[in-house]
């Protein structure tokens, strides 16, 4: 539980950013189809193929973020390193789901980043490269929250819509199990990361930009 008044303010604003992000996600055509039960196996394959690039890049910006914390923030650095280690091979499970859904391994291995992934990755690498990038808590808030949403909602929806031999949602489910713990860690990191009004502004702005670019990445799945 977050205790400092600034930490609580930060958490309130992060929650609002999350609610806004969820509404924006629901307006993305691909997700609208998912929520309306009109999602197809092809949609699922496209989603996984596009998502893989972000998962791979994810371990890079988290590692970069860890290395940008100096000795005054070694405690935060440790948490972020732990996080990076747990997730850096996640994409292999995702590839297996792709093949199980009828995709060719070569196709997903050779897929390029879509326009939204390019923008999201560039922004996150840029922010993670700043000295002591406490605002990356805002990015993790959005991305971890989405992991939980995938596990708690999307995986079931996908299985309902794409019921067929072999369709698996192991990546989404596995990812969500871990993200519950990650979110708990994030809660406890907020007081530590948010100590000034400037920190608060940066954290919320980074959460906001991350959410916007994430939606763009999902919009681009249909344009890929």
């Amino acid at each position: 539980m977050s205790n400092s008044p600034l930490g609580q303010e930060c958490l309130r604003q992060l929650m609002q950013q999350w609610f806004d992000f969820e509404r924006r996600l629901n307006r993305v055509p691909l997700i609208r189809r998912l929520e309306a039960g009109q999602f197809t196996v092809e949609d699922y394959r496209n989603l996984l193929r596009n998502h893989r690039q972000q998962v791979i890049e994810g371990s890079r910006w988290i590692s970069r973020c860890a290395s940008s914390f100096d000795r005054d923030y070694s405690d935060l650095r440790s948490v972020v390193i732990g996080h990076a280690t747990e997730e850096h091979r996640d994409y292999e499970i995702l590839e297996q789901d792709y093949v199980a859904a009828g995709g060719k391994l070569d196709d997903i291995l050779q897929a390029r980043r879509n326009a939204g992934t390019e923008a999201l990755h560039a922004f996150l690498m840029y922010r993670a490269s700043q000295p002591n990038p406490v605002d990356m808590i805002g990015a993790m808030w959005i991305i971890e929250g989405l992991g939980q949403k995938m596990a708690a909602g999307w995986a079931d929806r996908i299985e309902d819509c794409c019921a067929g031999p072999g369709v698996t949602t192991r990546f989404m489910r596995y990812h969500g199990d871990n993200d519950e713990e990650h979110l708990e860690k994030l809660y406890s990191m907020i007081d530590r990361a948010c100590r000034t009004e400037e920190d608060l502004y940066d954290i919320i702005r980074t959460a906001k930009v991350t959410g916007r670019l994430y939606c763009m990445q999902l919009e681009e799945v249909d344009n890929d």
Partner: protein
Amino acid sequence: MNVYITSTGSHLPGPPIDNEQIENHLGFIGGRPSRLKKRILRSNGITRRHYAIDAAHNTLISNDEMAARAAAQCIEESGVPVQRIGMLSCATSQGDLVLPGFGSMVQAQLGLSEVELHTSHGICSSSMMALKAAYTSLRCEEQDTALVIASELASRLFKASRYEAAGLEETLDFNAEFLRWMLSDGAGALLLERQPRGQCFRIDWIRGFSHADAYPVCMSVGKPADGTDGRTWQDFPTYAAAEAAGALLIRQDVRLLDNIVKMGVDGFLRLIEEGLVAVEEVDHVLCHFSSHHFKSHIFGMLKRAGAAIPEEKWYTNLYTRGNTGCASLFIMLDEFRRTRQLRAGEQIICMVPESGRFNTVYMALTVTGNKS
């Protein structure tokens, strides 16, 4: 210009029906007891409710009559002459007639002459929309006195024969059954004036946030059981065909329900940010949470955000009066006013999160004057 709620009234039809009697009253679908009833009742925490239909499914009192009874109590206790009421603003999910508007029928029941009329249509939040319409009319000084009534007669939807007509004896799904053990009947009325009268409530603000553009339909009547069938009830060649397709049943997409908790918290945080709500200054919270299950969720989220209001400040009569949809908040406010010793200056926050397609409405009241 201030606006005050100077009187309240309510009507709950018939005797209270407890959890043991409920299925005898609504009927056994296909002659068999429900497998889900206990689970749903445990989750919503409701122990008693009222129905306007009897166990033989005769309607003993109509929706507009219930509205009129709640209004009659409200007017009588206020001492305000009926002729002074310049506006009637009504809400319901389903009137007795499909057309005309519910307000016209209630006006005729009450014998109110030459009022300005408003009917708001929707589900739980429609009462707050009706209230806001009346509130703004008084605020801008177009009216001096308004009567606002919300009334629901949902039980007619829950007769066992309705589900049998849709051929669901064997295959009744959770979404179609969920509300059967949730909603019940009743009416509540509020009188609005521009001058305070005895101990009353000043309306400080009413604000709503609707998110229909971002979420699918969560609670509905009119969609067939087959989710891939895009038709709505009037698109079928006959009403009998629509009923057979399950398009006249009330449904809740329970998968989407958690969003109402989030939207409820989201609106609350916005109001804090705007400076309209200061958590430490709130003395009472009257929240129309549709079931006990959601109360703990809303609570947990607000606590985490440092925006929690202590549990002892939360008031509800959901468990003993039932979930009466749009009438709930008015019935709650009526009982709250009658049973609580209130002090001038106390602040009350009312919340009505509606799951229909995610509309959340909030209101702040300040207790004015003392009990005579």
